[in-house]
């Protein structure tokens, strides 16, 4: 009986604290939610009051481009693992993915700083940030796609092989129709991850001031994540704090929205 009590006492903060934290953000952001904050105040000309649309667009552009770059790579890695790899190659791939997943994202940011921003002279740009985010989410996305493909019943693949279908046909006509929702779940989770990463894009893709919507992929962007970071340093400015809370709430809504959709997709598959 004592042990149960102690366990429950220890378990409660594990559940309650993260929930409280999220609740606090929404509660703090609520009074500041207004059209002026979102779209910008034309009369004031500070970075704090120029609206959040460029930041939202920047975050979404980074996320979208990163996923567009990572998805073909992850798909080919997963397909290689399922179709062409022998046992030792599969082991090497699994070990490599685990290794890559363990490297802190800021280290990838440093690498990208050296290679993309300076060596390739791409400068601080959308494409640099997207490429580094792509590397950060690549192991996660690859594993998700591999899990999705592994869930396909092997009898279906065998039946298709017995009919003489080539690998391409098997993937497109047998695997994709069955596994598409799992793959989509994996992509959504990778997108949520891409939205959450701040450190790698801090010095490869984003600047604080002077940015509206990017002209091209070679220009710097602003993002919700980094915007929050910059505003957080201005704790004395009440308006900065308000905009920061709203940015955090927006970012949370985006990430939670993606997670909820991913969860719903998984439930749908389990229910069916």
């Amino acid at each position, binding site marked *: 009986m004592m042990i149960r009590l102690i366990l429950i006492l220890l378990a409660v903060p594990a559940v309650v604290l993260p929930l409280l934290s*999220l609740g606090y*953000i929404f509660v703090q952001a609520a009074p500041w939610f207004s059209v002026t904050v979102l779209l910008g105040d034309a009369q004031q000309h500070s970075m704090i009051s120029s609206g959040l649309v460029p930041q939202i667009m920047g975050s979404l552009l980074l996320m979208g481009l990163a996923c567009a770059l990572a998805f073909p790579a992850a798909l*080919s890695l997963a*397909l290689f693992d399922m179709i062409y790899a022998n046992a030792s190659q599969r082991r090497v791939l699994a070990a490599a993915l685990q290794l890559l997943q363990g490297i802190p994202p800021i280290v*990838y940011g*440093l690498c990208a700083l050296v290679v993309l921003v300076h060596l390739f002279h791409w400068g601080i740009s959308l494409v640099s940030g997207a490429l580094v985010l792509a590397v950060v989410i690549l192991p996660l996305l690859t594993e998700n796609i591999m899990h999705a493909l592994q869930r396909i019943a092997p009898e279906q693949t065998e039946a298709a092989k017995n009919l003489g279908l080539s690998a391409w046909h098997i993937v497109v006509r047998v695997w994709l129709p069955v596994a598409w929702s799992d793959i989509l779940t994996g992509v959504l989770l990778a997108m949520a991850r891409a939205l959450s990463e701040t*450190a790698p894009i801090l010095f490869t893709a984003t600047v604080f001031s002077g940015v509206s919507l990017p002209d091209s992929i070679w220009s710097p962007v602003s993002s919700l994540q980094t915007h929050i970071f910059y505003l957080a340093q201005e704790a004395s400015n009440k308006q900065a704090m308000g905009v920061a809370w709203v940015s955090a709430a927006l*970012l949370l809504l985006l990430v939670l929205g993606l*997670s909820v959709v991913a*969860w719903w997709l998984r439930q749908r598959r389990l229910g069916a």
Partner: protein
Amino acid sequence: MFKRFIYMGLVASSVWVLTLLFFLLQSSWAFWHQIGVQVLWQDEWYPYEHLYGFLPAIVGTLWALCIAMLIAVPCALAAAIVNSELVPRQVQPWGRVLMEILAGVPSIVYGLLGLWVLLPFLQKHLNLLSGHSLLAAGMMLSLMVLPTMMLMAEDALRAVPLEQREAGMHLGLNWEQRLWRILLPQAYPGMRSGMILSLGRALGETMAVMLVVGSMDRMPEPLYNILQPAQTLTSRIGREIGEASFGSLHFSALMACGVVLAAMALLLGRLAQGRAR
């Protein structure tokens, strides 16, 4: 054709990743070559005077990780046990869903909370100057790794077969005895890999730590003082990379910090893989 596409993707990914990692090492090479490995145990970091001691940052990182694990491990394990054993069956999936969703919360959001909520709290109740401290960093990190650790611990508990639990019941063992003698020993390997994984994530966390740790590159005085502003590897990189000009020794030093960080992460990864067998 299809095969060619797959192999192209494989090669492109490998080349890309290897290039990135190669240049990380290459750009820090100048630093190791010029200053040498002894910076790892020197304790003064003044880039403008060419003093590059890594020790304060390494010690700070280790302290933050320790605190994070001390808080997170009992709470996460307890939550896993409660959700898989004590909570009614209908409620259990909701606990998992909640944790899965919480696991995806961006770290900058936690950083904001840490800066504006935790620091004033610590400042007031522990009588500190600003609240910036390793304790704050550790507390933020524990909050961030709690959901993931709880999920992995719960998976490990559920993996213990029903027959084992029933065999315990047949012997007349009550719930606590079954927990200590059957469930926990058999779930321990899975729980341990969950802990190591979370440790890796906490190691690499930058934004939240950067905002609350204080970025003071000095050794804690005395060594166990976690209430002073201090520095971690990730926080140092994040703070100073904007200031260091490309190609300078300072820049190389920060790249070297990245190498140390990656090495620590790889070591953890090896530990996890080695024990898993």
